[in-house]
């Protein structure tokens, strides 16, 4: 069988949970060769191509790079003009690494959050030192990390795909979880509880000499969740996970009613406009 190096790189990159793109030149009916002509590019700029035309390769690579910079980017068939005239039809496939949800706090209200997160297909981690709560029975299908807040740094790994939910129901633990998460690469740090409680925590952290940059704070969401009037812990879980789904896809939430397009969202450079 053919040697499809770009496709192999695509499969390997997906396995490593990287954001990556694969462009395939679509063969027309009159194609001379069936060998796949592709360009692969990952988030770190590593690239493999099996296209002979360097100008076309470059054109395709810049289109993939553009998409990788936008978390709302989707697969698309594009036309790219050829130097010698005519156009090539190219399908650009985009892989977004799966969302990882990390819940700090294994209380009773974390149970539905973990349950819905697992059923959405998100890799789900629960962090809490209390083994009696943080157990397989309460959180089936999740990874559980039994650790005290002072040892997060050593035992808890947050990546740029990790959506953090802070819900310890304990000021000091929440405060430590929050500080840890805001210092990490997490794109989202949701904090359960009213705004006044969060402000108190931030003031305390400030007094302890811990302060955050604007960029670090921009990932914090509190009160947590979409505004759907959630009251029960099941409803709150839906509200939180709706917010995570929306943000992971560069959407803002809200009603679809009367919208002309369901899947497209006019985000600029992948960042949804915030209030």
């Amino acid at each position: 069988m053919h040697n499809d190096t770009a496709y192999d790189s695509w499969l390997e990159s997906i396995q490593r949970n990287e954001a990556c793109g694969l462009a395939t030149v679509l063969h027309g009916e009159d194609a001379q060769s069936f060998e796949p002509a592709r360009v692969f590019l990952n988030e770190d700029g590593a690239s493999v191509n099996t296209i002979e035309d360097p100008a076309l390769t470059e054109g395709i690579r810049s289109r993939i790079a553009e998409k990788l910079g936008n978390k709302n980017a989707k697969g698309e068939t594009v036309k790219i003009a050829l130097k010698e005239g005519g156009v090539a039809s190219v399908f650009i496939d985009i892989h977004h690494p799966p969302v990882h949800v990390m819940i700090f706090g294994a209380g009773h209200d974390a149970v539905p959050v973990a349950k819905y997160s697992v059923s959405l297909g998100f890799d789900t981690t629960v962090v809490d030192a209390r083994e009696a709560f943080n157990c397989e029975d309460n959180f089936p299908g999740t990874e559980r990390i039994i650790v005290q807040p002072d040892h997060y740094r050593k035992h808890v790994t947050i990546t740029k795909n990790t959506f953090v939910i802070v819900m310890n129901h304990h000021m000091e633990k929440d405060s430590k979880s929050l500080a840890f998460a805001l210092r990490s690469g997490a794109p989202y740090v949701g904090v359960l509880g009213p705004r006044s409680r969060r402000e108190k925590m931030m003031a305390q952290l400030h007094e302890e000499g811990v302060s955050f940059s604007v960029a670090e704070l921009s990932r914090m969401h509190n009160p947590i969740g979409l505004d759907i009037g959630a009251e029960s812990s099941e409803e709150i879980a839906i509200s939180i996970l709706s917010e995570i789904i929306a943000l992971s896809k560069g959407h803002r939430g809200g009603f679809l009613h009367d919208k002309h397009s369901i899947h497209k969202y006019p985000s600029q450079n992948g960042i949804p406009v915030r209030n």
Partner: protein
Amino acid sequence: MGLLRGRITIKETGVILLKENLKVYEAIAEAKESGKRAAVATVIKVIGSSYRREGAKMFVDETERNIGLISGGCLESDVAEEAKAVIKSGKPFTKFYDLDEDYVWGLGLGCPGKVMVYIERVS
């Protein structure tokens, strides 16, 4: 104080994860390893509404094992037929489906719209 148990790994729970494409990629990797010939059908263009979007994939191997969905169930059997030919010839193939919205919704199939599917051999 003896509280650091470190990681407890995920146990298999039989939860069906909605990571269709990841299953397709796994199947491709397996086919490559075992030397089985296989094709992948990818939705490359959608006009109008559709259950699955661009990038949705379906895997078909020479034993006619299928994995993944490219529509709400309307196109899979036809695409599997086309994929057999692609596996044999190695020649990629684009097929255009035009599903009438009123007709399809009427049948409760839930996959109207115009969909272009690219089928190619990957192993």
